[in-house]
């Protein structure tokens, strides 16, 4: 029940049932990368500041480096690979591409997931709201303006698709 030995955790990752044996001190980030092969979840700072390891846990953005894998037992996770079926681009990703919102690309998975989670709560966020929500995702290529453009464009297009509300 309670020691330093490995424990079994059961996760749903991008809709797929996964199991792993993990030590209590292993972060969700380490287990996703090193055990489950999800290299799109990236190590940046290890302190919850940079956002490159953002994972949606039961729909909400979480720092993978600050959640113990044992704490994610039973949770449903989405990484950037889960936004669209394999081989396809999610329309938000297409907006990022069109707007040149990715340069080196290291921050992009975290940006996409944080923006996507925001859009679930607020389908037509103001630019200010997008800024505020993305402030914890650092981009060292200084691509912030284009990232904001991309999220805004996606929200506008999505509003058009769903009948022009907002």
């Amino acid at each position: 029940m309670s020691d330093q030995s490995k424990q079994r955790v059961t996760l749903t990752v991008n809709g797929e049932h996964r199991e792993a044996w993990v030590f209590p001190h292993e972060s969700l980030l380490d287990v996703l990368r090193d055990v489950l092969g999800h290299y799109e979840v990236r190590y940046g700072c290890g302190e919850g500041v940079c956002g490159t390891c953002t994972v949606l846990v039961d729909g909400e953005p979480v720092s993978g480096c600050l959640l113990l894998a044992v704490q994610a037992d039973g949770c449903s996770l989405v990484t950037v690979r889960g936004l669209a079926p394999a081989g396809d681009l999610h329309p938000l990703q297409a907006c990022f591409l069109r707007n040149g919102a990715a340069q080196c690309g290291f921050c992009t998975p975290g940006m996409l997931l944080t923006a996507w989670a925001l859009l679930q709560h607020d389908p037509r966020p103001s630019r200010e709201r997008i800024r505020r929500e993305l402030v914890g995702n650092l981009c060292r290529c200084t691509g912030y303006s284009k990232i904001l453009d991309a999220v805004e464009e996606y929200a506008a297009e999505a509003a058009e698709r769903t009948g022009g509300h907002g």
Partner: protein
Amino acid sequence: MVAAPFGYQRVSSFEEAVQVLHERGEDAKVIAGGQSLVPMLNLRVARPEWLIDINPVGAGPIEEHGGSLRLPALTRHRAIEESEVVRRRCPILAEAAAHVGNVRTRTRGTLGGSLAHADPAGELPCVAVALGAEVTVQGPDGARQVAAGDLLVSYFTTTLAADEVVAEVRVPTLGQRSGWSFLELSRRSSDWMVVGVAALVELDAEGAVTAASAAVGGVAERPWLVPAEVLLELFGEAPEQALLARVAERAAAMVDPDDDVHASGAYRQRVAAVLVRRALAEAAARATGNGSGAP
């Protein structure tokens, strides 16, 4: 940066947490949201033998009781920020929660954890002190009540015993004639405050001050409550700029902040004077204007 190995135990009640803490003593650490503790583990600043995970205890709803709101210790910052009852009845708490870290910090971080961690630059400790929040602490002999101002002692130090946990926090609801303000200066909007101020001002029908409270974060080893004798100058007076500025200057002159990598002590003191003045003015404006005004 990877945490050193530790044992891990989930508990499903605060009573069970207390029992486990009592058995394990100083070797055990409680984990709630983990947004401050896990970075310390990753950096190996903290190396507990055991982590006691209280997340399975869960957080019930935020409830209004008489003149106060009762918030379970495991209430996440995000839940406070978005709570309809908090925004309506104690909006300063919602505003302070919205300033904590980034969206991921707020998704996981908890009110009880923030108070137990006692970061002198924390938003929620600052507002808890300004509000005179009451904290329910669970220990081996049952529950006890302690004022937030008595719980928070110094840098990352509280009066919690090794076998006690924060179970609930109660904050007063703000009346019709109460105004509030929470202001902070930080380098980026997700950073810790350099200086932050939580202020409450109550006015009578004629617009004269009948009650005031202000706490300043980032200028001392714990949130610093502006002494009543300083705020007393406001009582019975209209909250005019010159008066507020004088009171704010007097308050700021009483703190002696340390220098650190983010700001010098002198700068913090200067910012404290400005923010106390602005916060008192904003709180007074809200008290006269549109009731308590949701953030």
